[in-house]
């Protein structure tokens, strides 16, 4: 790694704690961000010369805090009488004490910072964009690229999100256990959204959005370090690791989706799988199941199967039933239908899928699965209609390419029959 690269890594890894503390000092996202940027600039100048500080976050907090105070003072001089008494608790000589206090604050600081970006008043896309900007420190340009939108549009989206967060009020009181649990759940959802954004747009080997998946895993590990005994956060981390472990096997050379059962399992990342399985073992000990743990357990059953035909579909079916009870949703039932098709056949699975039509008629995977089941049952014409519907709903080229292959396959199967008829 070059000097520049290790400084960058140190800055990124210290960012959540430093930003969290600066947000507590300044109680304003923009001010905290400016102070942090200033500290980073100074770090870029001095760290390569003097070597890395032992505690990068503490260094950034100290420097950022002082530069932020300077700025507040200058502003105060420009506008009115200096409200010194308001600033007196920010004097430098108290810096050391403040730093020592930080140690006990840092958990809530980081959680607050994450929660600000996960505030349920924000629509999902704004949560993701704000978290990537504020917590992860991605540039607006990088985020815009991941979302496939222009830089100006992304800038505007982030500005709007910040305004909403400020209007909703940032919670600064120390959270009690119930508040903490609520914030934790919101943050877990946000991390899952970040991952999904990366997971769903990722296509082809060069996909920038693989970075979003890595970033979500990093945030999830960070959250788990802060709350090491939360089984749902273990479940979330395991789930993300398991999904991401298959990244290299999910698309073929043409950029088309490869279904789980057709993936080359040698391409799965074994280290991620090992970490996830360890995490699930830890979570199970708590005997407090939750949606993330169950989804992780399902993904783990796939990861454990050496070959697709060794998959424990019975257990997967049971886990989906548990998930349906905990978090009823037509998408969960749709996923269960795959397990049912393996256990009891396409007929039984189709019976489970058909009633979901009302609620999932605009969902790509509903028509994709329905088409596949109809195809298995030899109902080619109906399968084609379902696949046509799916292709119209595909949100990226990988999905469309996959369905096109299914359609080609159908054509290959049915054409000889036509040819015979004609003869």
């Amino acid at each position, binding site marked *: *790694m070059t000097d520049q690269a290790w400084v960058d890594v140190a800055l990124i*890894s*210290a960012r959540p704690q430093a930003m969290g503390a600066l947000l507590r000092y300044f109680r304003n996202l923009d001010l905290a961000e400016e102070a942090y940027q200033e500290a980073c600039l100074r770090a870029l100048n001095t760290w390569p010369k003097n070597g890395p500080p*032992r505690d990068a976050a503490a260094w950034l907090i100290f420097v950022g805090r002082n530069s932020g105070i300077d700025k507040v003072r200058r502003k105060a001089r420009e506008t009115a009488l200096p409200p010194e008494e308001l600033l007196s608790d920010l004097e430098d000589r108290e810096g050391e004490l403040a730093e020592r206090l930080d140690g006990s604050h840092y958990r809530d600081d980081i959680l607050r910072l994450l929660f600000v970006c996960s505030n349920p008043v924000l629509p999902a896309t704004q949560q993701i964009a704000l978290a990537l900007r504020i917590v992860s420190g991605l540039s607006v340009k990088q985020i815009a690229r991941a979302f496939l939108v222009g830089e100006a549009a992304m800038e505007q989206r982030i500005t709007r999100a910040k305004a909403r967060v400020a209007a909703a009020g940032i919670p600064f009181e120390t959270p009690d256990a119930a508040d903490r649990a609520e914030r934790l759940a919101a943050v877990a959802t946000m991390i899952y959204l970040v991952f999904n954004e990366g997971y769903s747009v990722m296509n082809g080997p060069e996909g920038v959005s693989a970075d979003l998946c*890595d970033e979500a895993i990093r945030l999830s*590990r960070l959250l788990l370090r802060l709350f090491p*005994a939360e089984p749902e956060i273990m479940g979330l981390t395991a789930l993300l690791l398991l999904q991401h472990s298959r990244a290299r096997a999910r698309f073929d050379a043409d950029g088309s989706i490869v279904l789980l059962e057709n993936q080359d399992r040698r391409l799965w990342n074994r*280290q991620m799988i090992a970490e996830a399985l*360890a995490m699930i073992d*830890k979570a199970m000990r708590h005997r407090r199941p939750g949606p993330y743990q169950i989804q992780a357990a399902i993904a783990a059953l796939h990861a454990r199967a050496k070959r697709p035909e060794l998959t424990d579909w019975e257990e997967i079916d049971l886990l989906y039933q548990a998930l349906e009870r905990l978090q009823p949703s037509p998408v969960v039932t749709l996923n269960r239908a795959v397990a049912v098709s393996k256990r009891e056949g396409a007929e039984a699975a189709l019976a489970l899928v058909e009633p979901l039509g009302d609620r999932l008629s605009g969902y790509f995977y509903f028509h994709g699965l329905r088409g596949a089941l109809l195809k298995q049952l030899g109902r080619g014409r109906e399968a084609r209609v379902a696949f046509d519907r799916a292709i119209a709903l595909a949100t990226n080229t990988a999905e469309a390419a996959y369905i096109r292959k299914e359609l080609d396959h159908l054509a290959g199967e049915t054409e000889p029959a036509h040819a015979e008829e004609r003869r």
Partner: protein
Amino acid sequence: MLYAVLCYNDESVTCTWSKEEDDRVMRDLTAVQRKYVEAGKLGPVARLLPTTAATTLRHGIGETIVIDGPFAETKEQLLGFYLIDCASLDEALGFARDLSSANPSAGSYEIRPLALYKPGELPI
């Protein structure tokens, strides 16, 4: 004498490495190891999963207590270790220095002489 060389670093930093950075560090460290393997000096090498995967068993009053996470909350964590046969502390320090120059991030190597060593029979 057998020495354990214990590797400590801030795992929030090592977990921030991109796949390429991680691969490069591992490749450079492997090159250092090869030299010592060829000299017949290097024993087992282990890299540990992050401390978020750790569980700690403590001896409580009348019962053992299982705690999630590592033994101690520290700024730097134990991330892995080497076993190496060296004639002197200086030689062991030389090995740690080689590792350190192949690994550009901050971090520390603790050199601990061994009191007992059983190679075991893991069929790996």
